[in-house]
């Protein structure tokens, strides 16, 4: 399969959207484009598994390379491994759902969909790039639309939030850029990940470059204490914006931390692993406790995202194969879950015109479908078996426990404790919003979800269940990547 298709389809869709005459055309064009991309992603998964089953043991499959510059050597070098395939699938799921929940956007529809697809395009490009320069380019492509999505279609303090988000992410990007350039000049003038992975840099250099890259990508993935763009950004963004932000953008960071920082600089990872563990354990518990006090549904999910994404970082910091595997699973799982969570919050908001938990109650009566989904996604968040969150978190725990010293044990137990706190805040939200006596009769009269919302929810639910009920396929898809990273770390 030619990976260029994965960029071409969203690009063509985005362009086609620009040429549409009216809202209906825009919406359907975008949806058809996104569905085509979803089909492509599934086909990619099948082809990938087929190649692997046929015994292809290359690290990257479907590699393509097109030279852009000769000096410095910048190539459109694409290729995928299990992690990329999983992230591409995730992006496609969220894209379709995001387009569906935005069906009733009235203001500047064309521009909205254009930016949304552009955002996805950036993510696709990022996940298939094997050239650091191109990877960085796509990372930036996915930042700019967020600023506009929040600034124009957002709510609340949207200018402040948009500024904050863009500036913090840009700050992260600046660190990444410096890191990439340092790598380039010190590792034989190359941007190519596969080439760079053959080079072993000196320990001192690794110790300098690793924190730049890890912190830079860490900003994207809400590394404590650089996470504060998350609550404000999410709460101001339109529904689809939040879904993308939490579902995909935060995963760009996690992916970068693994693929670029940890994989290329294993000595650096070893040096800073303890700090990563401390920060992520803090993020997990502190995020959970902070969530407990939130009253706005979007803030609840934003802080809970800080806590959940912490598991990914914890897994990376633990530096065992199982833990890294869990970290990747958590990226996928949290991506689908949080997108669905924000989608449901959007559905609730459209009907109640509030996101304050205290102003709602007994919504189960009026919107059983939306509330059932809310229930399921809440249970996924608190790690109920059968849903995706459980699988990922347990893999991280099992992997973390393989480190037998007290420091790692304490960090793991601290992370485990969050499963109780998560249950507290999730059940508080569910108990208040879905259950209990009806607070406002107007909310009940507003009716249940429309077809587009239903479709979006079902697509994401399918993702949650596919991972939760039979996780072995995802495990098999991801574990070779974890193994390769671990081999680098162990110096094989």
């Amino acid at each position: 399969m030619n990976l260029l298709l994965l960029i071409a389809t969203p690009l063509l869709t985005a362009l086609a959207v620009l040429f549409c005459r009216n809202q209906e055309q825009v919406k359907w064009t975008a949806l058809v484009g996104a569905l085509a991309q979803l089909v492509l992603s599934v086909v990619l998964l099948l082809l990938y598994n087929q190649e692997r089953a046929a015994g292809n043991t290359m690290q990257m499959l479907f590699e393509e390379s097109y030279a852009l510059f000769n000096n410095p050597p910048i190539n459109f070098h694409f290729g995928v491994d299990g992690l990329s395939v999983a992230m591409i699938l995730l992006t496609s799921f969220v894209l379709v759902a995001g387009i569906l929940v935005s069906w009733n956007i009235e203001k500047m529809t064309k521009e909205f969909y254009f930016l949304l697809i552009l955002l996805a395009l950036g993510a696709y490009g990022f996940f298939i790039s094997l050239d650091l320069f191109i990877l960085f380019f796509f990372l930036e492509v996915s930042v700019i639309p967020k600023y506009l999505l929040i600034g124009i279609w957002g709510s609340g303090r949207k200018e402040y939030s948009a500024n904050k988000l863009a500036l913090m992410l840009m700050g992260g990007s600046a660190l990444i850029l410096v890191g990439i350039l340092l790598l380039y000049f010190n590792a034989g003038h190359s941007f190519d990940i596969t080439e760079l992975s053959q080079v072993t840099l000196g320990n001192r250099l690794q110790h300098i470059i690793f924190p730049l890259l890890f912190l830079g990508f860490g900003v994207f993935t809400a590394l404590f204490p650089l996470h504060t763009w998350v609550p404000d950004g999410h709460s101001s963004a339109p529904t689809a914006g939040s879904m993308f932000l939490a579902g995909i953008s935060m995963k760009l960071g996690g992916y970068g931390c693994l693929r670029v920082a940890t994989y290329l600089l294993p000595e650096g990872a070893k040096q800073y692993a303890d700090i990563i563990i401390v920060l992520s354990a803090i993020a997990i518990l502190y995020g959970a406790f902070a969530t407990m006090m939130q009253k706005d549904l979007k803030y609840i999910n934003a802080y809970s995202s800080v806590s959940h994404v912490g598991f990914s970082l914890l897994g990376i910091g633990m530096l065992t194969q199982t833990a890294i595997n869990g970290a990747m699973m958590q990226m996928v799982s949290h991506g689908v879950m949080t997108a669905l969570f924000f989608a449901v919050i959007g559905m609730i908001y459209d009907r109640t015109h509030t996101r304050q938990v205290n102003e709602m109650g007994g919504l189960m009566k009026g919107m059983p479908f939306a509330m059932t989904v809310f229930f399921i996604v809440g249970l996924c968040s608190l790690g109920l078996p059968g849903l995706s969150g459980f699988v990922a978190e347990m893999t991280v725990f099992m992997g973390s426990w393989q480190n037998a010293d007290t420091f790692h044990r304490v960090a793991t137990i601290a992370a485990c404790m969050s499963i109780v706190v998560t249950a507290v805040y999730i059940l508080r939200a569910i108990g208040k919003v879905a259950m209990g006596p009806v607070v406002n009769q107007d909310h009940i009269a507003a009716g249940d979800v429309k077809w587009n919302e239903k479709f979006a929810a079902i697509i994401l639910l399918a993702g949650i269940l596919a991972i939760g009920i039979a996780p072995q396929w995802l495990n098999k898809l991801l574990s070779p990547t974890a193994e390769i990273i671990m081999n680098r770390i162990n110096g094989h």
Partner: protein
Amino acid sequence: MPNALTIALIPLLPLAGFVLLGLFGKRYTGKYSGIIGTALLLASTLIAVYTAYEYFSHSQGGKYSNIIAAKYTWLQFAPGVSIDMGLYLDPISMMMIVVVTLVSLMVHIYSLGYMKDEERFSTYYAYLGLFTFSMLGLVLSSNIFQIYIFWELVGVSSFLLIGFYYDKPSAVAASKKAFIVTRFADLGFLIGILVLSYASGTLDFNTMISTLTSPESSQLKTAAASSFLGMSVITWGGLLVFMGGAGKSAMFPLHIWLPDAMEGPTPVSALIHAATMVVAGVYLVARLFPIFAITTPILLELIGWVGAVSAVIAAIIACTQTDIKRVLAYSTMSQIGFMMFALGVSGYGGEAGLGYTASMFHLFTHAMFKALLFLGAGAVIHYVHSNEMKDMGGLRKAMPVTHITFLIACLAIAGVPMLSGFFSKEEILLAAYHHNPAIYWIALLTSGLTAFYMFRLYFNIFWNKPYHAHGEHHGEAPASMKFPLILLAVGAALAGYIPFGKYVSSNGEPLASHFELSFSILPVSLGIAGIAIAWIMYRKQSGLPEKVSSGLGGLYKAAYRKFYIDEIYLFITKKVLFNLVGRPAAWFDRNVVDGLVNFTGNTTQMVSERIKNCSRAKYSSMLCTSCWLR
């Protein structure tokens, strides 16, 4: 033996019911949902009984082996360490599938009448299916992580069913409390799993038990050598796993969720909070029994004491409660305490293993009479529309079937000879008598109290003052509700005659049943004394109960307020967790961490404003200066 696929149908049929009724119930099956759910469960029950029958009729010289009928790798963590979904057949899992399907079937049938006017009738049956599936999956687990998975699933089914009347704030609060308290206990369970799996290098029950009990195994030596805070790693692992079991089985001090859980529909209380889910903790200890008994006997001692303390505390509280379901809830906690300390006083193998057999025996008989008591209480509540004793009395004429069956259950739980509870309780007392006399005396006191509070309940419902019906009159109960009562009453009367030791024992080898007439005289006469006191105090309306309660003063009040344990928890959660941890964390994030971010932004802006305001002249002069400096 039936093949693996057939056995797999036992849990899968109720799951099919859940999916079917959950997706299509409201729109398509409507009032037939109950029939569909019941039919699926009936099929499951028949297969379960047949499987158990086949299993128990194929012993090797009286000894039963453990069979793993099927195994499927669900998630592979590392080579050799994986979560497997398996079907594990051994005497206790076979006993449990019979108990679970049978009680669940009774509840399904009973609910056809009890829940018939419910708006969410289909949802109710869907939830019942989910619960039954999870519980069956739990008991058939071959892997410690599998049991944890189903453990959580029964937890969530319990949450859904307690909160079934979701518009009632008390039901919502109770369901949240049940989930969160057991979740807290499950945190221990989870860490315990991590500890034990790391120590043994596996998650599989059989391998884990053999590695952690055989003295030659190198893993055991390493694990026993490494200690933390004065206890070996295995002791810690076992303790944490037991914490999970104590939470689910409502052992002191993690019991506070169980009385509140009575907010759920009464048939649900019978199924989940009396006969099946709450004994999961006992089952878990029994499942890992060789590890407890051989490797960490100190933990077994602790388990014994936790069980004994829970038994006596719950029995005292039960004497003071006025809500009939709460009395039954505390009674359940007390009886589970019996099962727990029976395991605690047991040894592994031979005569020393009597406690193990007795515990499982009591689990079996208790399921019968406690489910019966709850279903009977449900019929009473259905009739008088109240849970409070003061609204009842004199119902024996109006509800003859309920009355007789309830009486049988009360006699059984009180340990009156020839009924099922007598046999299992005598065995427990005998085991305690030989191994831990202190626990024996506590248990003896508790069984006296049990007889008293059960007959306090019985006399208050069916005797005491004459019943004045207000509002419309309807018959006792539909046939669908009476049938399970009668069937369970037969079970409660006769279950004791099963030669249990022949089938279930700590090491699989048959154990002769024990019965010593001289030993039984003391407990039985205590039980009869309890009944007699209840008869004097509650058969007729009198001022006696008030006199006694005011005579007891502070003790009565403390017991009535459940020894203030709820208040202590409330203080810890509300005051400490929310105000001292949650609020500061949220404040810190908004003001310190985010404050720094905003500070950086503002400073940058301020500096650039300053520079902007510099006049052009200054710029040029600065430029000149710099040029000049060159």
